[in-house]
Structures are given as C-alpha cells and as structure tokens.
C-alpha cells in the first residue's frame, strides 16, 4: 500500500472522529459549529503529554479525550439551554475563542537543548512520539481504524439502547420528549460530553499524525466540514457521517481531474443532494427500509 493511500486513509479515519462527534449532537437536534474546539483540545493536550511530559500515546490520548469531554460538558451546561440557532452561534463563538486562545498560548520546555511546545501562532512542532517509537505509517493507520471501529461499534450498541433512542427522541420532538418525563437538558449535556470525548480522540490521533499543530488548523471550516459529513451521509446511522467523510476525502480526492477544485465540487454536490435528500443519504427512513428489507430477506431464507 503506497504512502499516499495510507495517508489518505489515515485522514479519513481521523476526521471521522470529528464527524461522529458532530453527528451525536445532530441526533439530539443540535447543530454545533464548535466540535473542532474539542478536536483542538485533544490534539494539543495529547501532544503536550507525549512531547513534553514523556507520556506514552495511550495515556496521552485518554487524558486528552477526557479533558475534551470535560470542556464539552461545561460548555454544554452553559449553552444547551439556548434555543437552536442561539446554541449554534454560541458554539461558534466558543470554538473561535479556543482557537484564539491557542494563538496566545505559549508553553515550552527545553528537551535536549531545544524548546518544545505550543508557541502561539508559531505552532507546535516535533510531536514525534510515532517516530520515536518506530510506529510505521501503516501501523498508525491500523491503530486509528481499530479505535474507530470500537467507537462505531459502540454507536451501534447505542442505537439499540434506551439512551440512543432518548437522544433520537430529543432530536425528533423535544417537547414531546419532555412531556414524556425526560430531562432534556441533562441528556443533551451528556451527549455533548460524549461528543467532546470522541472529538478529543480524533484530535489526539491528528496531532501525532501531522506532528505539527497550529491554531489556524482548527478553524470554523474544519467544524463545518465535520457537520456536513453527517448531514450529507445521513443521520439514520453512525455509518452516515463516515460515508460523508469517505465521499469528500476519499472519493473526491481520488478523482485527479478535480484536484484543487475539491471543495467546489463537494460543496455543489452537497447543495444539490440536499434538494433531493434533505436528511442525507442514509436518513432514518432509508435505514428503516434497509432494516425491514434485511429482515424480510432473512425470514424468507428460513
């Protein structure tokens, strides 16, 4: 497998975490423009842990994801009582604040005579854990996908569980859910925390893949991309956002003819698709149809 393919696949894997993060909130009916902030927190904190404190990747990852989850929970508590659009803009404001805070954030330690650490807009170089531990690009990609697989499996488990259907109820009809005894805000905050955790994992992987971070990476565009993947791929299943990511970074990237025009094509594609499929490719109805068809086929086979 050549390097380019490994690189593209790794990208798909990492961005999928961001897409799943936005997807979870979308299920509860909330559009968050700010998941990139938790992606950023995951990236920076895990990088600080490995490059500056000498932690192994696993613990750094967990720390970073936990921190992102904590931040997401706090922000959720503050913002989720706001009506839809206000919430969305609040997440936008928060994410930009985080990005700008990283611009003025300087924290460096000297390792082997060289300063290492985030240096505001100058960035954070030499996040070298992967190289220092002889993990090849292909092996790293596998690690990303193993973790992604686990997360997606958990999502599938969530779908069948009460918690998952609670999240969907919130998205379908918040008032009705409340009338059925659900403390809406509490569950949305829970979703926010989990979403933050997932974004944090993605960010941690991202930091160690690119080995270089700067605040500019974690801008609104990144967050909007994350949202778009779920909205295009469909909100009926966790595979939806993955399809969205695959469509953009995988499929469109593969078409050499449109190199450099990818966003134009993707943007146009999304706009046109939304005219015919306003809830994405794999929306709830389609997923339901697939499920029923599968069941009928299985029963007929008996």
């Amino acid at each position, binding site marked *: 497998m050549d390097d380019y393919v490994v690189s593209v696949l790794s990208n798909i894997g990492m961005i999928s975490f961001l897409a799943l993060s936005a997807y979870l909130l979308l299920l509860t009916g909330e559009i968050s423009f700010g998941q990139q902030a938790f992606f950023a927190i995951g990236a920076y904190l895990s990088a600080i842990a490995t490059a500056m404190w000498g932690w192994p990747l696993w613990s750094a990852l967990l720390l970073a994801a936990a921190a992102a989850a904590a931040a997401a929970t706090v922000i959720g508590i503050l913002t989720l009582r706001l009506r839809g659009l206000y919430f969305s803009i609040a997440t936008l404001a928060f994410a930009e604040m985080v990005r700008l805070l990283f611009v003025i954030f300087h924290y460096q330690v000297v390792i082997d005579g060289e300063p290492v650490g985030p240096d505001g807009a100058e960035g954070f170089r030499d996040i070298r854990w992967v190289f220092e531990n002889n993990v090849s690009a292909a092996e790293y990609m596998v690690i990303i996908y193993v973790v992604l697989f686990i997360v997606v499996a958990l999502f599938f488990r969530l779908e069948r569980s009460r918690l998952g259907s609670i999240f969907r109820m919130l998205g379908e009809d918040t008032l009705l859910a409340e009338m059925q005894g659900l403390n809406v805000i509490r569950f949305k905050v829970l979703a926010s925390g989990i979403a933050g955790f997932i974004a944090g994992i993605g960010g941690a992987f991202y930091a160690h893949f690119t080995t270089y971070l700067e605040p500019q990476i974690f801008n609104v565009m990144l967050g*909007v991309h994350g949202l778009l993947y779920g909205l295009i791929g469909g909100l009926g299943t966790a595979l939806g956002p993955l399809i969205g990511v695959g469509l953009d970074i995988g499929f469109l990237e593969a078409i050499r003819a449109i190199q450099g*025009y990818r966003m134009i094509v993707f943007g146009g594609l*999304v706009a046109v698709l*939304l005219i015919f499929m306003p809830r994405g490719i794999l929306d709830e109805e389609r997923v339901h149809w697939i499920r029923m068809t599968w069941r009928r086929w299985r029963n007929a086979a008996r």
Partner: protein
Amino acid sequence: MIDFIQNCIDGVMIGSGYALLAIGFTIVFGVLRRLNLAYGPSIMLGAFVGTLLYVQFQAQILTVAIATVIGAVVVGMYVERLCFWAIRRGAAIASMVSSFAIWMQLEEVAAIILPERTYPFPALTEMAPLEIGPFFLRSEPLVMFVVAVALMAVVHTVLYRTRFGLAVRAVSENPSAARFMGIHIDAVMFWAFALVSAIGGVAGFLILATDQQVTPYFGLWVTFKGLIAMMLGGMGSLPGAILGGLVLGVVETQSLWYLGADYRDLSAYFLLFLILIVRPGGIMGQALPEQERAADRRV
C-alpha cells in the same frame, strides 16, 4: 480618557460597516427564518470582481463600487436559488447546511480565481483626517460612516415606506398569513435577498476601500462580523443590528488599544458568548426565557 473617546469615535465609524452587514443577516433571517452562511463569501466574490477591474483596467472608484455590488448580487442570486428556493420550505436545516456547503464552494472559487494573499482596493478618499478638538476623524472611516448611515436611511425607507417593504415585513411576521393576503412569497424572498446582497456589496466595498486591500479571508471575516453584530443587538431586530454593529466596533477598537491585536478578536467572541449565555435576546431583545420556550412550542 481622550484615548477612550477617540476609540469610541473610531469604533462607531467602523461599526457602521458592521451594522450594514448585520442588517443583511437580519433581513434574511426575518424573511427566511434561516441564516445565510454564504453571505460573506458572496460579498467577497463581488469584491474580487471589483478588484479585478481596478487592477486590470484601472477602473474608477465608482466603477469598482458598482462592480462589487453587482458581483455580490449575482452570487447572492445563485445562493438564493440553490440553497433557499430549491429546498422545500419545511427543510430549514437543509437550507442552512446547503448554505454552508456553498460557502465552502465559494471560498474555494475565490482562492482559485485570485490566488494571491492580497489584492489592492481603491482608497475611499484622499482627504486628510479631520480634527475636532483633541480628536482625529480619519477620512476613510468617516466617509464609510456617512455612506453607511445614508444607506441605512434608504433601507429604512424601503422597508417602511414602500409596498415592497410592507410585503417583506408581512412575510417576516407571518408567512402563511402573508400568502393568504396575496403576497407572492417566492418573489418577496428573491427580491429581499437581492436587496440584502446589494447592501452587503456596499458594506463590503466601504470596508475594503477603507483598508485598501482585500484578502481571501474576507468572506469568513464578513460572516463573523455580521453574525456577531446581529446577535449582540438581538437576532431579528433591525435597530438591534445597527446597535450591535456599533457596539462591536467600539469593543474591538477599545480592546485593540488597551489589550493589543491578539486580544481584539478574542474580546469580540468573548462578548458574543457572554451575551448569548446571559441575555440571548441581545441588547435590544427581552430576556424572557419562558416566553421564548413557549413560543417555540406550537402545541
């Protein structure tokens, strides 16, 4: 103290531009109940047309202005047809998402057409700054302020003294009722969008002519300034949009002066975040959470 007042003066002048942008967002939100996130990029593309004429053909400032406005309007039409008109009325989220997608698309178009980091824009005026006592009024922002105020007056007239304006307000209040009164909703939305794009074009032109340059980040920048100003003042309120714009301008100038460039944008976002948490209705809005929740619930 002198500095503080000077900053307020500067802030108000710059804020008038923000106010225009906020007015654009507000009208679209009022009529369509959705945010047009492709607003910034469409204005930017209009500006690129303007700068193209300026660089290639040494066009006069007025020509550049007109070109910017026309460019913004044309792109605005594209956005309106694709994202708002083509998508069924009920699918509000789909419209907004579509406008993000087109936002991305337009950003890339801009990056491709004009790949340099910055392009020159004609200066608004060559006059020396005005001096009033200890205060300086720089001439470009001053001209921008005067034109912006004039434009606001025009918009006010259109909205409150013409039949078209009446239709726009009717649709904003209650689309179904408006339809029953014979108002052609699609046409109103189309023309309101055109108006908003034109306002945006003028605002964009004024801001860029003050800075004398345009960069590919302008689209995003416009979107943010307009949104922040609108939310500060209170979403859906025109006087709020104006007030929000002015407040934003002042806050920015003050924080730039006292805290430095790094903190300028940070303060703006922080202020927005704070307002949303404490008083989502904005400065002009009412802080009535229950009414808001109840109004949401058409039970």
